[in-house]
């Protein structure tokens, strides 16, 4: 059943990948440049990495980004998983359709509109409370939870549909309370969906710029916002160093996830082989 892949298709594939990676490679090369010119390469140096680690504002922004991503992803996963359970139990009808449609709005709407609409709400509430500068950690947190929720729900719902309701009933008949039956039977079977929802929420939050840009204030900067304010002027090469580090981290993480998945796949196969 092996299908042959022609040489021309391989050339095409490589060309598109080259297009995708060209700017990234350029950033990596420039990060080791001895001068801060983008057209002249002079020498190899770690100077920009040194500067990056001594730039307190960037380090603080990085720290803020991680705190925001962890807290918003965990919250979104919690609310979203509960919501998926509730939605799964709902009867088909107007109520369910309405909830699903509203849930999907942040995915369908242009990000700039989502950002702007939340900014209007926060500024409005701020003016009622008479607070100046409401925009900060909490507004970012609310925005990130909001745009992550649909992704969590859409990851958990299919797993719930696949769960065999009879096992839950069996656990109830054998004396489990509703709650303990849920934790012993339903939760383990939807855990992979919850986990991928969590990861997705986390990465979305890490990378978000457009929505964050409208709901953040000067007191709490995330890394993408810091990068934005730096690319407004002529960028110093420590930004290139930063992107190189980000690229390497992403690559390592992805390889780890892949290796981990392969391992768990093969161990699952073994389990099935020995248990059944």
């Amino acid at each position, binding site marked *: 059943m092996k299908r042959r*892949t022609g040489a021309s298709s391989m050339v*095409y*594939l490589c060309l*598109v*990948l080259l297009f*995708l990676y060209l*700017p*990234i490679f*350029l*950033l990596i090369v*420039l990060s080791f440049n001895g001068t801060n010119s*983008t*057209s002249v390469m002079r020498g190899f140096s770690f100077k920009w990495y040194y500067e990056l680690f001594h730039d307190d504002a960037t380090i603080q922004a990085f720290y803020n980004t991680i705190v925001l991503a962890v807290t918003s992803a965990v919250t979104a996963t919690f*609310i*979203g998983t*509960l*919501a998926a*359970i*509730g*939605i799964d*139990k709902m009867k088909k009808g107007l109520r369910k359709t309405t*909830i699903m449609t*509203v*849930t999907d*709005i*942040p995915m*369908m*709407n*242009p*990000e*700039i*509109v*989502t950002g*702007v*609409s*939340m*900014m*209007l*709400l926060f500024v409005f509430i701020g003016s009622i409370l008479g607070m100046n500068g409401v925009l900060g950690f909490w507004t970012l947190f*609310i925005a990130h939870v*909001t745009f992550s929720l649909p992704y969590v729900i*859409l*990851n958990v719902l299919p797993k719930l549909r696949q769960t065999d309701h009879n096992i839950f009933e069996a656990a109830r008949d054998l004396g489990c309370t509703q709650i303990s039956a849920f934790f012993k039977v339903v939760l383990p079977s939807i855990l992979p969906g919850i986990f991928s929802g969590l990861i997705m929420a986390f*990465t979305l939050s890490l*990378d978000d*710029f*457009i929505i964050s*840009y409208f709901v953040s204030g000067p007191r709490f900067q995330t*890394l*993408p916002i810091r*990068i*934005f304010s730096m*690319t407004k002027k002529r*960028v110093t090469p420590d930004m290139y160093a930063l*992107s190189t580090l*980000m*690229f390497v981290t*992403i*690559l390592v993480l992805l390889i780890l996830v*892949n290796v981990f998945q392969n391992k768990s796949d093969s161990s699952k196969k073994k389990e099935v082989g020995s248990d059944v």
Partner: protein
Amino acid sequence: MNKKASLGQRLCAAPHILWSAIFIVVPLLMVVYYAFTDASGAFSLEGIRRLSDYTTTFLRSLWFGIIATIICLVIAYPLAYVISQLKVKSQAVTIMLVMVPMWMNFLLRTYSWMTLLEDSGVINNILGKLGIGPFHMINTGGAVILGMVYNFLPYMILPIYTVMTKLDHSLIEAAQDLGANKLRVIRDVVMPSTRSGVISGITMVFVPSVSTFYISQKLGGGSFSLIGDVIEMQFQVSNNFNFGASLSFVLMILILICIAVMNRFGEKDENGGVII
């Protein structure tokens, strides 16, 4: 089989419903409210009337978005097919390679294109050594479209690839056995069964392209401002929330119409890979 949901199960969705009502529905209502009022809060059509000053910007955004989407489709469709024909292991690696650039901060990647395309930038430098050029590439409409294609191409590749992998190869063989040539196989078998992936790809490229604001500032040099740039300026520079809301409102309606039209072309397919 589905017994009546208990009170506890029904309450599960409550936090999410409350959250969506406050942070999705109310903000959108705020956009509508601000769009039709003036700074004092009185009803006004001033914002809507002023929109006509920006007809060119709206048309340019739509035009650039359409061109970028078409280019993405033309690049991604054959590419997705090529990837789906690879061995399963190489497929996973290639898809990972396609996804990695998406996780790099898009501001930095766009900025990198700026240094590539500049009059004294990397590409002109290399061409100069070969005795060609220099070409003026930055601050043109083409550069803006290139930025869109570059940033959103993976969003087109992934959903199309997902449906390609589900393609039933016995159908293709059957068509060939019945005497169809390559072109007819593609037109009558491959294309209809990959339509859902194409539709979600188009939506996922078109919506962010039309509403982008960073790419046009960096690669268009201010002379090709898009609707996103105007909205961003109203909120972050001129502090004219009312006019900004009018623009956002119209952008939202425009995109909703586009999505509705797109969805009419493709029958709703539950398996269509909307989520990556």
